[in-house]
């Protein structure tokens, strides 16, 4: 066996704190190593040529690269060795950057550790077997989770590319947060005017099938072949009959139902269509408030509905869709303001959230576009906006910036002046974060042209005094305490992950961070991919994001799916479990433990019962291998032999 070892300097990233020459020198002494060298950038073209040349020149049959994390470049080097004619599994990568040079301060200890890492990789690669992929057919349909602007963009791009799209939206209408906005920054475009056409595209596209008011019940399968169970929640209205005339809503006697679309800015009816441009424009009954459900009698909507669409007996329905890829665009949530007792939020009606204010500004909102103070419905003249309400607040577990509050507050200050010319807006801020194109100019305009007074400091307390709300905070530039007697206070409350984000991630087998935002494959270079192949991200489910960024990601995710589906067949990962029928005793413990039901019972021609792996279903976790009492089932590339060789390389040196 002739192993070649290539140590990467990675510029000074590795060579700065690891003596790479010493590592190469020690590698040369390891049994089976025929060649070892150190190179500046092994992943560069000349660096890779160094490998292919050495394979040819020194007749190498195994390769170890000691460099960055295999999560970074394993595929690069596997392709390199393939080019030189080796099986791509005759390669191992030792991680001496993320796990060594970047975390250890002592060069001597780092070097010693790097040598160990190389020894482990050498011992493992010597036991590697050639593995070969098989091909399987791809189901070229894509599931889009969430009908906000990111999901809609992804769906339209996929469908325009000829793919069949299944869109699942949990609320009664698509449109997401953007449909609630009055205007968008920095252009002050009417939000629904630019979103509406996209919503219609989604509704009318031949290739897009929309399941509104639906949730994901179960996801099974793997890239190319997913089986999705969708739970269609009961709307208590037969949507095939509902024409969206709105008569039911007009006549509904329950006027205090919580309005989810308006974030409770004003109450709505128990049967309602969320907004005029809703798609689908169909009514839904909220059983939490509907008298028919709460008191057992009413039936007004059933009486007035001209098409007889009301059905109080409706049950949820589970339907199944098969797809080959999933785009997750489940959006974000907003932090509840009841955390802010010092602001009296939730107790004082004239302390509201940014999105509630947006609904007041909106012509199709609960006040038809008139700004009012909720307590007495009078027009406010002094309005205070507070940014970073919960954001950048470690004490509340939200250390991050919510990304777009600075911008929407500037927009709302501008719109306030348009609505009420004799009004005065104040904005409390810590830093103005406006790095987008035309953004900083926009926040300047709010101050220079619209006269919004920006106060650098946080608000500490809000309390009522007569009809006013006294806002007490600091102006740190003046270096003192300031007070404003406001008519209305608008809180820019923090962006948090969507409700149920963690549970959804668990269904999708993708990772999420401590705040519930989904984790991309690489923060810079793989921003819309996840570590689960076939599952992609778009929009604010990955982190707070404004509209252009969300739309960009929607298109990016669609491009990824189109690229994936450009082939009819996909190659399977050959690192799956394999049964040795000679040693298998047929206890079938593996069948019970396999998380994917990928192992079944099989009877050999001689009548012996053994376990059998279904290759396309096995995901390669290796739970079976550590379950098997006789070592008969082995996960390829991570066999007992290979892993113990690594253990020995550390413990028995």
């Amino acid at each position, binding site marked *: 066996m002739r192993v070649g070892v290539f140590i990467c300097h990675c510029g000074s990233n590795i060579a700065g704190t690891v003596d790479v020459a010493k590592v190469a020198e020690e590698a040369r002494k390891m049994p089976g190593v025929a060649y070892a060298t150190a190179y500046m950038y092994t992943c560069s073209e000349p660096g890779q040529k160094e490998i292919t040349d050495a394979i040819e020149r020194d007749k190498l049959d195994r390769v170890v690269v000691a460099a960055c994390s295999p999560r970074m470049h394993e595929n690069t080097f596997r392709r390199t060795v393939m080019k030189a004619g080796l099986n791509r599994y005759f390669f191992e990568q030792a991680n001496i950057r993320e796990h060594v040079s970047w975390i250890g301060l002592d060069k001597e200890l780092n070097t010693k550790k790097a040598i160990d890492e190389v020894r482990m990789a050498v011992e493992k690669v010597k036991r590697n077997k050639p593995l070969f992929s098989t091909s399987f057919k791809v189901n070229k349909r894509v599931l889009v989770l969430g009908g906000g602007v990111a999901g809609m963009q992804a769906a339209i791009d996929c469908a325009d590319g000829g793919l069949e799209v299944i869109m699942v939206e949990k609320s009664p209408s698509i449109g997401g947060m953007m449909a609630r906005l009055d205007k968008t920054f920095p252009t002050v475009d009417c939000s629904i005017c630019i979103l509406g056409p996209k919503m219609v595209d989604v509704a009318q596209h031949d290739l897009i099938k929309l399941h509104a008011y639906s949730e994901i019940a179960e996801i099974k399968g793997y890239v190319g072949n997913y089986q999705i169970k969708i739970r269609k929640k009961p709307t208590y209205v037969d949507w095939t009959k509902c024409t969206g005339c709105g008569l039911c809503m007009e006549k509904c006697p329950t006027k205090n139902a919580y309005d989810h679309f308006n974030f409770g800015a004003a109450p709505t009816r128990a049967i309602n269509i969320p907004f005029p441009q809703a798609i689908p424009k169909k009514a839904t009954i909220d059983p939490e408030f509907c008298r028919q459900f709460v008191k057992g009698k009413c039936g007004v909507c059933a009486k007035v509905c001209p098409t007889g669409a009301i059905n109080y007996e409706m049950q949820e329905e589970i339907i199944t869709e098969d797809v080959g890829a999933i785009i997750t665009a489940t959006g974000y949530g907003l932090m509840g303001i009841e955390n802010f007792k010092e602001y009296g939020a939730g107790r004082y009606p004239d302390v509201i959230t940014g999105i509630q204010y947006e609904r007041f500004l909106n012509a199709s909102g609960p006040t038809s576009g008139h700004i009012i103070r909720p307590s007495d419905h009078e027009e406010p003249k002094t309005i205070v906006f507070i940014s970073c309400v919960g954001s950048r607040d470690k004490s509340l577990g939200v250390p991050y910036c919510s990304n777009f509050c600075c911008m929407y507050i500037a927009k709302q200050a501008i719109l306030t002046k348009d609505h009420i010319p004799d009004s005065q807006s104040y904005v409390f801020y810590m830093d103005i974060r406006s790095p987008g194109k035309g953004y900083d100019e926009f926040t300047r305009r709010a101050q220079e042209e619209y006269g919004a007074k920006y106060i650098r400091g946080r608000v500490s307390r809000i309390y009522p005094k007569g009809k006013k709300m006294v806002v007490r*905070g*600091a102006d740190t530039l003046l*270096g*003192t*305490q300031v007070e404003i007697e406001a008519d209305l206070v608008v809180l820019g409350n923090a962006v948090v992950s969507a409700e149920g984000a963690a549970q959804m991630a668990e269904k999708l087998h993708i990772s999420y961070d401590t705040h519930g935002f989904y984790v991309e494959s690489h923060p810079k270079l793989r921003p819309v991919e996840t570590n689960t192949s076939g599952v992609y991200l778009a929009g604010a489910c990955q982190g707070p994001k404004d509209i252009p960024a969300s739309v960009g990601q929607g298109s990016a995710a669609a491009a990824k799916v189109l690229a994936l589906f450009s082939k009819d067949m996909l190659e399977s990962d050959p690192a799956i479990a394999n049964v040795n029928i000679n040693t298998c005793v047929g206890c079938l413990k593996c069948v019970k433990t396999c998380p994917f039901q990928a192992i079944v019972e099989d009877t050999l021609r001689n009548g012996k019962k053994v376990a059998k792996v279904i290759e396309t279903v096995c995901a390669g976790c290796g739970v079976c291998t550590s379950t098997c009492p006789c070592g008969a089932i082995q996960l390829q590339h991570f066999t007992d032999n290979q892993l113990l060789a690594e253990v020995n390389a550390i413990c028995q040196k």
Partner: protein
Amino acid sequence: MDTINLSEKTDWAFIEEVKKESGQNPSLCYQCGNCTGGCPYTQYFDYPVSVVMRLLQSGQKETILKSKAIWLCATCETCTTRCPCDVDVANIMDTLRIIARREGKVAEKDIQLFYDSFLDSMKKHGRIFEMGILMGYKMKSGHFMGDAELGPKVMSKGKISLFSKSIKGADKVAQIFNRFQEKAKKHG
């Protein structure tokens, strides 16, 4: 205002001293001003709390220790409660008072005198003897007439005793003070 030469006038040792004695990290403060906004005493301070924090971050020892602000803080804990960075600001103010006292740089002499009378009474009697404190303070501060109108009011309700009364273990309490002073001397 003077230019502060930060290369020369940053007292790094002082920052470390406060860090150690308070257990708080001043670098966590991002100067949002919430403490200043909520502080009931801002209008009486020469430097608002957030400025004290900033002075601390920049190691401006003299300015801080000579400030009135640290003595006018009543430890109402509003700043600590609301700090988004989880800094125990009141504890830092407390620590700054301790250091100012230790270095003999107290800017608010009356407040120190009042506290001293309080501690004297405690050391002498084991408990607080309100009349004693008041008289002690008046003698030391020279503010004889302050609150003079309240005296008769309080007397009439039988609320304040003219005569001191010590607890049995008053010497034990004095011992605590003595041991503390000995230890402080030993460690310089």
